[in-house]
């Protein structure tokens, strides 16, 4: 137990220390009147705004955003895996899809979001569409690249054992692709939070993005910061969950 504590301190101690330092300086700067509170609210003001709006944030806005993030992520995961695997098996598909994939990432999100609002209205689907547009790309690329990493050497070894293409895929290429896939998933899940927030900014009736937009309209900087704090926390927690699954699954995947 003592060892675990020591390790934690050596891993995160410095980070926590710097955090405390930043927050203290921040609080001091605002309180001393160097920066007006409507430009940069003090950490304590953000905290009390968080406490004041606690129920509203936790019962309405956070669940709304979480729902968009989760649906967007699951759909991106399914679509991303299918596209990545499809491109791995078919060179024709790869040649057709890869340019489109890259193009899809060059479209400025803010510019296309109004179009999604036009198509899907103010329903949850317009937000999910933006989420998917940001989140599926890292999944496709990490799946596709990961499957390629299986390497010719292993493929040839299994071929000499008389293995079919499907067998090689199952026994070697999928396990070999997992580390890459998980890197993609960790990025993707964080992008999901970004995507959902952007979607909400452009048109929504609930969600943390919607809340922060409304509050910024009211010049309530402390409430905007409170929403941002929750969004960032949400991203971190989702990231950690994927990391934990990865650790469990790849316990013995030393390379």
């Amino acid at each position, binding site marked *: 137990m003592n060892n675990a504590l020591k390790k934690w301190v050596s891993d995160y101690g410095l980070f926590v220390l710097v955090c405390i330092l930043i927050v203290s300086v921040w609080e001091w700067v605002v309180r001393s009147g160097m920066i007006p509170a409507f430009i940069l609210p003090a950490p304590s003001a953000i905290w009390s705004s968080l406490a004041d709006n606690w129920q509203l944030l936790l019962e309405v806005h956070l669940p709304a955003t979480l729902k968009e993030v989760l649906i967007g992520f699951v759909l991106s995961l399914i679509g991303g895996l299918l596209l990545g695997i499809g491109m791995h098996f078919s060179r024709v598909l790869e040649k057709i899809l890869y340019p489109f994939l890259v193009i899809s990432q060059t479209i400025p999100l803010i510019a296309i979001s109004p179009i999604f609002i036009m198509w899907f209205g103010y329903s949850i689907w317009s937000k999910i569409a933006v989420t998917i547009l940001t989140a599926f790309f890292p999944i496709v690329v990490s799946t596709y690249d990961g499957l390629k990493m299986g390497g010719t*050497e292993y493929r040839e070894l299994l071929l*000499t*054992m*008389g*293995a079919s293409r499907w067998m090689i895929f199952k*026994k070697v290429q999928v396990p070999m692709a997992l580390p890459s896939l998980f890197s993609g998933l960790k990025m993707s899940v964080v992008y999901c939070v970004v995507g959902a927030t952007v979607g909400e900014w452009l048109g929504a009736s609930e969600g943390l993005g919607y809340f922060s937009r409304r509050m910024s309209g009211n010049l309530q900087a402390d409430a905007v910061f409170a929403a941002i704090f929750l969004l960032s926390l949400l991203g971190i927690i989702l990231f950690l969950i994927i990391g934990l699954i990865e650790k469990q699954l790849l316990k013995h995947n*030393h390379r």
Partner: protein
Amino acid sequence: MREAIGLSKSPMLAIRDLSYSFEARKPIFQQVAIDIQPGEFVSVIGPSGSGKSTLFKLITGLLEPDQGEILIDGQKMETRLGLVGYMPQKDLLLPWKTVVDNVLLPLEVKKENKQQNMSEIRKWLSRFGLAEFEKAYPHELSGGMRQRVAFLRTIMTGRELLLLDEPFGALDSMTKRNMQSWLLGLWEELQKTVLFITHDLEEALLLSDRIYLLERTGTFQEMKVHLSRPRNPELIYQSEFIEMRKELERRIHHE
């Protein structure tokens, strides 16, 4: 013996009139002919980059010859994949599988019942000095042990003809010496046909019945090793052995 009773058994491996070249470059093999009888131990030596590994890829069926034919056990098959046991230069153990699961891979590929073969496999594991490491992962093993696991995996293909591509190439000289004497003892009871790539002249002489020298012109020169069996590694200090080594070196420099 066989001739005496009038049975003409076909060679384990017969290569006839084989030519092969990588696209538009000078040929690697030119009208090569090789015959290997059942139970023989034959080495192929040649400078690095001379195409020894390419020969193995042709025999296993990973590559197809430009010209000529390759017969395994007297049969010319549509595909040779799955007909020979192939051990590549690197051990290529799957890092997420235990020793026993790695050894079972060829059975898994052929969808054979693993439980049925378990007692036989346990016997093999202890014969290979791996009994205690059954549940260990490859990264926990030494280089020599990993090679043994890879070799056992090759045997588990159940094939009569084994192609070993520089199995001891990456080992230090002490471990290499141990592995050679271990292989000598093992092969005599295995009764398998082995084709062995090496660039170590001593190793080739110590282990083989015959040696094929791959020349720069893409042809083979054959040399018989007249040393009685059973052999042991002490042999390399005897004058008879040293004479053969001289002869071999003379031929290499002469070509």
